[in-house]
């Protein structure tokens, strides 16, 4: 069918349950959700639905009155989710927004939207790293997930199966328990589309946390919306490093699934990643490409610094463990804000094990439920950001009208202390 997938040509096959939903037998909200899914089925290029057993809802992000009205329409119609459904970030830190410059009207609307999704029976995780909570899915599980980094992580790192669900559709899938039987849900949709061979990338760089956001950014740039297969990784990345690849790949590109040979579960070998086929495209990735990606993540060449932001995707316990000793006994410069975003659950655990005390004494603030990309929380004066996240680096200039510098975690801390940007770039010039 080529690129058009045969919209309007297919004979649609509905199950009895699908028909019951469509005819309103399961209530008006389920009917509206199925009506939207039914309109979308041909756009996915397939003729039937399939079951899911979990969902992750990104429709929670407050973008304005329309997203609130959509949530409240479904809630008012009596919507209830049929599968366990975690919630992504919202538009405000529900209990902490007054610490920042969030307009009261936005906070009020965003909280109304939060309450609407909670009323549908969703699990109030309020995080863009649900895979680092107890609600993480398992290998092979069929899911409907929104939020691009979550889609990447579920598919690539866990081997669960979700298509790229846009906001507004993920909740329809959760309410009906049904999704188009398409794409990444199916074996054939998970085959690699190009082989990227790492050539002469120093092991010391591969062992450094700063490598992974850049690798993600490069995958997004190289493979666009394909399924890149990375060969030649000489170390076993940890879960936070893989999370950084997912976020980078889903920002610079639309990477919903990647395979790293010998690392991710569907790619023990190159042959497995391509399901026995020859790679349609092979490219070598050298330090030249890595350096290019590294430089692309920064839009500033100066030293000015107003704020450090960490935690996109939301910080994990292990990331707090890495940060705490770097800041212990020190103070952030008085002109530099320092923000870490995480989930309520991770903050609570970090609090109870004493990780947050040195971080707060350093002068940092902790925000939950949201992040500066989805909450209008930053003061006007913030013009120069620094981050260790490829996602913050990619989106901040457009969304926040700031310039941004990408650096490793320790660079972010040292810069916050001195008040101007400092980067240890030895590994990048090797």
């Amino acid at each position, binding site marked *: 069918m*080529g*690129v*058009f*997938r045969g*919209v*309007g040509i297919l004979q649609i096959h509905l199950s009895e349950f699908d028909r019951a939903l469509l005819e309103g037998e399961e209530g008006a909200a389920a009917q*509206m959700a199925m*009506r*939207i899914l039914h*309109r*979308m089925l041909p*756009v*996915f*290029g397939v003729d039937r639905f399939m079951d899911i057993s979990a969902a992750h809802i*990104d*429709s929670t*992000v407050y*973008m*304005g*009155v*329309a*997203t609130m*009205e*959509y949530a409240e*329409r479904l809630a008012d119609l009596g919507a209830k989710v049929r599968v366990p459904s975690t919630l992504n970030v919202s538009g405000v830190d529900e209990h902490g927004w007054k610490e920042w410059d969030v307009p009261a009207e936005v906070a009020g609307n965003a909280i109304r939207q939060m309450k609407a999704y909670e009323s549908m029976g969703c699990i109030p995780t309020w995080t863009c790293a649900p895979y680092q909570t107890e609600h993480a899915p398992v290998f092979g599980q069929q899911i409907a997930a*929104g*939020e*691009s980094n979550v*889609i990447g992580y579920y598919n690539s790192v866990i081997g669960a199966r979700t298509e*790229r*669900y*846009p*906001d*507004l*559709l*993920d909740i329809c899938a959760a309410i009906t328990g049904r999704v188009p039987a398409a794409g990444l849900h199916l074996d054939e949709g998970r085959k690699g589309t190009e082989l990227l061979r790492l050539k002469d990338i120093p092991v010391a760089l591969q062992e450094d946390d700063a490598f992974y956001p850049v690798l993600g950014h490069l995958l*997004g740039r190289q493979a*666009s*919306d394909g399924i890149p297969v990375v060969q030649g990784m000489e170390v076993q990345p940890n879960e936070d490093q893989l999370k950084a690849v997912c976020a980078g790949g*889903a*920002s*610079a*590109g*639309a990477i919903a699934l990647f395979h790293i040979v010998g690392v991710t579960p569907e790619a023990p070998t190159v042959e497995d990643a391509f399901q026995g086929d020859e790679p349609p495209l092979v490219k070598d990735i050298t330090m030249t490409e890595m350096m290019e990606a590294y430089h692309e993540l920064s*839009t500033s060449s100066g030293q000015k610094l107003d704020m450090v932001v960490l935690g996109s995707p939301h910080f994990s316990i292990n990331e707090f463990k890495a940060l705490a000793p770097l800041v212990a006994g020190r103070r952030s410069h008085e002109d530099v804000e320092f923000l870490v975003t995480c989930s309520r659950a991770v903050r609570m655990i970090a609090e109870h094990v004493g990780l947050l005390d040195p971080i707060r004494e350093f002068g940092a603030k902790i925000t939950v439920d949201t992040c500066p*990309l*989805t909450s209008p929380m930053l003061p006007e004066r913030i013009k120069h950001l620094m981050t260790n996240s490829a996602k913050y680096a*990619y*989106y901040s*200039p*457009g*969304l926040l009208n700031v310039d941004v510098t990408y650096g490793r975690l320790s660079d972010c801390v040292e810069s916050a202390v001195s008040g101007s940007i400092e980067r240890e770039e030895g590994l990048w010039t090797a």
Partner: protein
Amino acid sequence: MDRVINGEAIIPGQASGVALASTEPVSFWGGYDQSSGEIIDRRHPLSGQIAAGRILVLPYTRGSSTSTAILLESVRAGVQPAGLVTDRADVFLALASVVAGEMYEKSFPMVAVSRDEFELIQTGDEVEILDDGSVRVSKK
């Protein structure tokens, strides 16, 4: 010089306007100002252009799942593109039109055309989208 391209109506409907075209995909989240219709992805070739009321010609959306919500907000604010021409059946863009129809009875047409023909449409061309998925292009 007029030319008619036979595309596929992803969301059937009629619209006409001046093309705003790029072969580079855009992420609406962080790339489209929902209150003015300006393309605000500063890394994108169309940065600074206003897409409201135009026929927006983009291969597909990139990146975040939130692109659909941004486009829906732009419909509510009245600054959405008049119609979209893509080179594939883009789920994120199509959904915005479906939900805009459901919530506000304001869906907008979307047509997918082949890559070769997609590249023929340039910024400034007069473009008309018809119900059957055909796209009439008058070069500027």
